[in-house]
């Protein structure tokens, strides 16, 4: 080595260098504070919003009657019973409709089509992949139009829980397909090969190993997308959700009542079938809110605010479930 050679160790010890290190450290710290500041700002605005809702709606939130009354002409008496029950029924249909289809599609695309020996199938898979990713970004009202056309007009399902649930179902379907594929992708191929190598079929490998290993991530994706669907308003207005509903979808096998026109008395005329609730009219939380916000009387704002808090809590509950499931399943899986 020559004397003129760059001596890095000497440079580090140099005073100038020390200074430059502290300058760089300063920028480091500054940047982390700026980032933290924006984070807090974002969270703060959000929290403020929820807090505002809470303050506005506190009286309603404190009264049990609010949760167990139907909407009424006076803000005093109006409650969210039909809305939260409707939301739960609709989301149930969404879940039952979109999970099997979305997860199956994800499994097919990731585990079968992608490794198909037919070049055409593989090309088709790439094509579908691009489109599904795009579909996930399509505005929700467009799905409303789709639901209107397919479920309401073509299949004649009417203004029903079924129409609403399936419309939200196709809304979340792309996200479920994409998250399922991502979850399956994260399973190491060494695991698949290990199972295939002792003679398992593809389906046995998927069912016994790949799905158990990825179910946590799949469920997380599903729940997060469903919790988004619970707050969707536009597509349900498009498919004709009602805003004023003073009844609940009939529970399976509950007594079916009819009112005698002359006496005004109710009498039982049999029982509801197991699927009648699917064809019932409905309303959901965000639509109930939307309706109340639009009323001229400011009294209804209080109801809307209280309903908003309940909706946020419902979403929060679903997201916590997602976090819980993720932790629960991750704990059991290590690579």
């Amino acid at each position, binding site marked *: 080595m020559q004397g003129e050679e760059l001596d890095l160790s000497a440079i580090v010890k140099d005073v100038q260098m020390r200074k430059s290190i502290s300058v760089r450290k300063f920028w480091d710290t500054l940047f982390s504070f700026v980032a933290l500041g924006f984070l807090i700002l974002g969270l703060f605005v959000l929290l403020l919003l929820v807090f505002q809702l809470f303050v506005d709606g506190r009286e309603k939130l404190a009264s049990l009657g609010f949760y167990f009354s139907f909407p009424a002409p006076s803000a005093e008496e109006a409650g969210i019973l039909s809305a939260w029950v409707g939301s739960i029924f609709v989301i149930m249909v969404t879940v039952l409709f979109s999970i099997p289809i979305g997860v199956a599609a994800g499994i097919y695309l990731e585990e079968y089509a992608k*490794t*198909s*020996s037919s*070049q055409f199938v*593989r090309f088709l898979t790439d094509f579908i992949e691009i489109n599904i990713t795009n579909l996930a970004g399509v505005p929700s009202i467009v799905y409303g139009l789709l639901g209107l056309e397919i479920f309401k007009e073509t299949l004649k399902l009417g203004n029903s829980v079924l129409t609403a649930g399936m419309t939200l179902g196709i809304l979340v379907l792309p996200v479920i397909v994409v998250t399922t594929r991502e979850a399956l992708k994260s399973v*190491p191929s*060494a*695991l*698949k*090969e*290990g*199972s*295939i*190598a*002792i*003679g*398992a*079929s593809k389906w*046995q490998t998927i069912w*016994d*190993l790949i799905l*158990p*290993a990825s179910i946590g991530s799949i469920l997380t994706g599903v729940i997060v997308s469903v919790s988004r669907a619970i707050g969707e308003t536009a597509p349900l207005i498009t498919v004709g959700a009602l805003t004023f509903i003073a009844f609940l979808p009939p529970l399976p096998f509950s007594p079916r009542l009819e009112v005698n026109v002359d006496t005004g008395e109710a009498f039982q005329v049999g029982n509801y079938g197991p699927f009648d609730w699917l064809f019932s009219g409905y309303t959901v939380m965000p639509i109930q809110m939307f309706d109340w916000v639009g009323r001229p009387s400011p009294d209804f704002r209080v109801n809307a605010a209280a309903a908003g808090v309940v909706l946020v809590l419902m979403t929060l509950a679903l997201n916590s479930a997602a976090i819980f499931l993720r932790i629960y399943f991750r704990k*059991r*899986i*290590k*690579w």
Partner: protein
Amino acid sequence: MELAQDQLGTQVKAQVKNFSFFYGSNKAIKDVDLEVLDCKVTSMIGPSGCGKTTLLRCFNRMHDLYPGTRYEGEILLESQNLLSLDPIEVRMRIGMVFQKPNPFPKSIFENIAYGLRIRGVKDKGVINERVERALRDAAIWDEVKDRLKDMAFNLSGGQQQRLCIARALATDPEILLFDEPTSALDPIATASIEELVIGLKGKVTILIVTHNMQQAVRISDYTAFMYLGELVEFDRTDVIFNNAAQQRTREYVSGQFG
């Protein structure tokens, strides 16, 4: 390749005949002929990228999992061409142990039992007995017999690899394929696995890829030397290492390249 006379009496378990393999248009295995003798240990050596793994994975049709691969020629398992059998049947008869231990995210017991379950074995007694025997054969029984319900990931790397060997043994394979099974292990774990392979001689046909020439000398009866996708030489291990016919083989085993 012709083998010397002293193999009379040992049977050929598998015969690779005029065999080539392609990744797309890349011919990774070139016109290989090879005889794998029954209940012997055959090792495959050669410089990195010469196609050892590729050839090994042809024996249990692992390449079928990936599109764009193609086999040409024959690999006879006894007298059937395994390239025209159902790949699942082939894998039921030919087990494999990978370079990196890959236990299933299940309990130790279930790792071994899984191969039996997919073969439709339901009898608990049979499964218990088979699991114990496989774990004993893989020399890991004493270490795990009190913790069969533990997750397999809680084992050390060497234990995991022996577990994977037990998993492959549990289903009584006719041939066992090993792809550098000790390359991720420390010397002690390596020694225990080598001992295990030697112990399996006479019970099962073993085909093992190794980068470690001392290992090939220690454990194998026959050695195949591959270079650039071709089989350069195949003979008894002592011949390959002391008295090879080909110049290239002599250079490789003496460490002059590779």
